[in-house]
Structure formats: structure tokens, C-alpha cells
């Protein structure tokens, strides 16, 4: 490599890293300012929302919020215990249901399926379309399935079904992307050494794709945890006064309880609702932090 190429590369790298260049035409300046404005607008709206919610919810950031059930008699002690536990049940159930199923489906489509066959292509197109379907439609689907099995409304299992349907396409698509990002040399090397396709997938492709799979899965789950619409459809309750203990228990969920409080004009409930939004945000942030941790821990470079 000549010295000139190296110098040129360094300049390019520097330009990309700092955004500085000698190109200072008015057009490029306006474009740059437009980009900054878009960035500023997005972040400003988010900050205003967060700060507003935090300030309104601040008086209720206490233990009762987490440990008490909802209260009509003592609005200042109103808590979200049932909603938080319900959401945790729904989350764990959805994860247990969708992670194995989603990864298996994606592995089949990516590693084993012959995508020249018409039925495999139909499955692929369907999954891609499903990822764009509005959440409430999954609620209607889940309600139909529950009716088929004669299950009552508002059970934990119904909520899990709705959220699983919602999360599955996302997990399948991100898992396929992650598998596709594993260099084909790795697979070819393994196959050349005499390993079967199954062994190659299990020992090489899948472990290498873990960071991508984990990130996609957890982002899918954190979308599901904030959903209220499909849960309303399957009849998840606004208020229960007991902790769910099995899949066939009646349950509530945090987004539904927050939504339920929107119709109440008492100041104490508005504060409680804002505090609960912060709790929900922290739960989502926690999940996202876990995703980042897993990605960093298992990340490899080729």
C-alpha cells in the first residue's frame, strides 16, 4: 500500500469521524443545520415528555406505588402491585413461549429451508407482513384462539398469547438477520471438516448469532410490555386485588392500569399514573440494558 493511499484513507476516516470537511458551500451548511434541527427536535420532545412526567409523578414515587393494590378509598395510597406483577408474568410467559419458537422458526427458514419452494416463500412473505400488523389485530386473533379453547376472558394465558403473536414476527426477522450476518466462511469451514448441517448450525452459526438474537428478542419484548391495545381485546382487567399465581389466573397489566386512570380527574390518580409511567419506562429501560449487556458480552469480531 502506497503512502498516498494511507494518507487519503486517514483523511477520509478523520472527516467521517469529526464531520469536518472543507466543503462549506451554503447548501451543505443548510443541510447540516437541518440535520441538527431534526436531531434536536426528536430529543427535545422526548426530554420535555420525560421531565414533565417525572415532575408530575414525583410526589408518588414511594413504596406504596409498588406494594399496594389500586385504591378507590385512599387515592394517595393507590398502587400498581397487580399491574406490575401481571406485566412481569406476561413478559416471562411471552419470553418462554416466543424465544424458542421464534429462534427455531428463523433457523429453519435461514439454514434449512429451500427458499425456491413456493410454500417457504409464502411463509417468508407472511412473516414479513405480520411484523407490520397493528397490535390490536393480534388481540382479536388471540381472542379468537381463546374462544376456540373455551378459555375465559382476562386470563394470564390470554395476554401471553396476544403478546406472543405480536412478538414472534419481530424475533423471527431479527434472528434471521443475525444468522445472515454470520460469515459464510464459518459455515463452509465447519462443513469442510465433515460436520453435518445440523452440527454446523448448533455449534457455529447459532452461538455466533447470539448477540443479534438477544438484542432483537429483548427489543421485541420491550415493545410488547408497553402494549395496552391487544390486552384490552383479550379482556385483561383494570383492577384485581390478588397476585397472579398461575397461567389461568385473572390478571391486570401496568399499561392497562395507567390507561384506566386517564379517565379519573382526581389529582392523586394523575400523580399515580405519571409515577406508574416512570415505573413502566424503567422496566423497559432495564430490558434494553440487558440487551446491550448480552450483546457486548457475546460479541465477537471476525
Amino acid at each position: 500500500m502506497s503512502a498516498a493511499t494511507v494518507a487519503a484513507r486517514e483523511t477520509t476516516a478523520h472527516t467521517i469521524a469529526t464531520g469536518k470537511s472543507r466543503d462549506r458551500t451554503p447548501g451543505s451548511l443548510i443541510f447540516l443545520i437541518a440535520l441538527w434541527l431534526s436531531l434536536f427536535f426528536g430529543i427535545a420532545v422526548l426530554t420535555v415528555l420525560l421531565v414533565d412526567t417525572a415532575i408530575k409523578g414525583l410526589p408518588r414515587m414511594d413504596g406504596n406505588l409498588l406494594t399496594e393494590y389500586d385504591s378507590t378509598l385512599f387515592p394517595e395510597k393507590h398502587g400498581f402491585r397487580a399491574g406490575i406483577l401481571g406485566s412481569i408474568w406476561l413478559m416471562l410467559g411471552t419470553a418462554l413461549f416466543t424465544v424458542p419458537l421464534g429462534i427455531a422458526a428463523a433457523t429453519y427458514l435461514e439454514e434449512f429451508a429451500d427458499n425456491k419452494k413456493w410454500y417457504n416463500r409464502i411463509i417468508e412473505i407472511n412473516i414479513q407482513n405480520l411484523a407490520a400488523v397493528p397490535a390490536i389485530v393480534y388481540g382479536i386473533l388471540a381472542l379468537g384462539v381463546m374462544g376456540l379453547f373455551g378459555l375465559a376472558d382476562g386470563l394470564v394465558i390470554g395476554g401471553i398469547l396476544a403478546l406472543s403473536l405480536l412478538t414472534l414476527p419481530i424475533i423471527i426477522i431479527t434472528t434471521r438477520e443475525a444468522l445472515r450476518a454470520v460469515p459464510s466462511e464459518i459455515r463452509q469451514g465447519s462443513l469442510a471438516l465433515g460436520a453435518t448441517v445440523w452440527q454446523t448450525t448448533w455449534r457455529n452459526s447459532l452461538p455466533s448469532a447470539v448477540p443479534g438474537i438477544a438484542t432483537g428478542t429483548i427489543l421485541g419484548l420491550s415493545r410488547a410490555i408497553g402494549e395496552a391495545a391487544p390486552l384490552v381485546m383479550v379482556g385483561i382487567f383494570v383492577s384485581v386485588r390478588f397476585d397472579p399465581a398461575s397461567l389461568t389466573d385473572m390478571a391486570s397489566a401496568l399499561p392497562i392500569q395507567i390507561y384506566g386512570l386517564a379517565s379519573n380527574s382526581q389529582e392523586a390518580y394523575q400523580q399515580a399514573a405519571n409515577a406508574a409511567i416512570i415505573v413502566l419506562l424503567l422496566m423497559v429501560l432495564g430490558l434494553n440494558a440487558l440487551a446491550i449487556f448480552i450483546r457486548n458480552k457475546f460479541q465477537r469480531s471476525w
Partner: protein
Amino acid sequence: MNRTSFRRALVPTVAALALALTACGGNDGEGSDGEQISGNVVVDGSSTVEPMSKAASELLSEEQGKIKVAVGAAGTGGGFEKFCADKTDISDASRPIKEDEEVPVCQEAGIEYTELLVATDALTIAVHPDLDIDCLKVDQISKLFIKGSKVKNWNEIDPSFPDQEVSFFFPGTDSGTYDYMAADVFENESEELRSDVQASEDDNVLVQGVSGTEGAVGFFGFTYYEQNSDKLKALQVENPETGECVAPSVETAQDGSYSPLARPLFIYVNNKKYNDNKAVAAYVDFYIEHLEQIATAAKFIPLNEEDYGTTQAALEGIA
């Protein structure tokens, strides 16, 4: 600050009062004999009645910890749909069941039910204390509030009204109070009110707005007006049937003359579930026994003695 402490003081006072009253009634004290009943109770329906059903569940849980009550808020219509499909035990309703649409569905499914009147919900239209207007007709309320209304001055709806600009203070569109005004008071296909208003989810903000702005008008639940009646002037409303102007009060709301801004609230109980499921029976009995306390906690107007007697009689008729 003052308000919060006042509220805090109010709750135990009301509770003590209600307890004292029920004690006077010489009830048989079903919960006090220590028999613990277990079972599920599923309640769904009107989000307006929901706070009452939740309050009943909350009070009951202190005596009967093993009864699992789940309360949903699918709306009155959605509630009846589930009720008549045998999915719920009790349906909350802010209107009577519809004879032509909902009753046949229940009958076809073989569901027998009992209607129990539980409280009265009333709205108050309040204006700035200095405004020289006393009574509104329903069509004037409609002109003033309906979606797309161009009314900017009080004398536009009636030439005898003062020449005074109107400012509006409405509850947020998510609230049950808004829904009631938008959908049930006057003919309004859009079920929306005018949007060029100051809207707030917080009733305190509405009270401050109306009491501090000349010519202002707003509306909120009657019990909330009652607590702030020193700062506001409540408008009378002409009863469309009798043609008389009626001022909002506990009495006029209870006897139905403060129409259409007062409406009855009901719960519908599935007779079979009541007789077969001890938990449902215990919940409903407790609900009706402590009705006054529950209605007050949920900020509704409790029944007068006559209506309460009717409700008790209807409850006895289930078994």
C-alpha cells in the same frame, strides 16, 4: 396542600359515618362470623361505575381475603356483550340495558339477571360567580358545547343573556365526565364537544379557571362542584319534560328531576351465578350493604332511602 389534608380527613369521617349508619341498620353481619369464602368474581362494564365496583372489592378484601374480584372497564355496551355471553358475573352500567338490542341476546343465551340501582351520577355546569345567567335549556347547552360550535358570546345563544365573551373549561376527552356530556346529554352524533377550549385532566385547574375568568363556563361531577360551591355558580337546567328550571342538588339528582344532567348507575347480577357461586353472592351482598360508603368513595350521589329500599328488595328477590 389544604385540599389534600381536607380529603384525608374526609375519608375516615365518611367511613366512620357509613359504618355507624350500617350498624344502626342492625344488619346480620355476614362477614363478621369469620367464615372465609373463596372463589372468583368477574365484573366488567361501564368505566363510570368501575370505581364503585373497585371500592366494593377493596372494602370486601379486608373481611374476605380469599374472594378474588377482577374488575374490567369495557364500557356499558361491551360489558353487556360479555355479560350476555356468560363471560362475566356482574355487569356495570351507566344506563339501563337496551330492551331491543341487549335483552334478546341475554334471553337467547338463557341468562337471567337482576338490575340493581346503585347510585346517581350528576354533572354540574358552573360559571363565573358574577355572570348574570341562571338557567340553560338543553338546546342552549348543545349550541354552546357541541363540536364545531361558533358561539363566542353569551348573547349569541339567547339575546337576553349579557354581552359577555365566553371562555370554556372542559375536562380532558378521556374522562368519563366528558363522555357523559358529549354523548348522553343532548343529541350529538359526533359524541365530541367543541375543541377551542381550555382542557385539563385535573378538576382543580377547571375550578380555578372558571372562578378566575369572567364569563367562563365549565362542567364537572356534582360532588366536585359541591366541594367548591363557594367559588362557583351552578347553572340551573331546564327539565325537557316539565319545562321547569332545576338547580343541581343531591335531592334533585336522586328524584330524577335534574334531567338530563343526572343519570342512574346500575349493576346487573347474573342470578344463576349469584345462587351457585358463594363468592359472587358475598360480593353483591357486601356491595349493597355498604352502598352509601361505596358511592361516596367513588364520588357519586348515594341513593335516597326509598330507592335504597327498592334495591335491597331486588337483591332479596334474586335468591
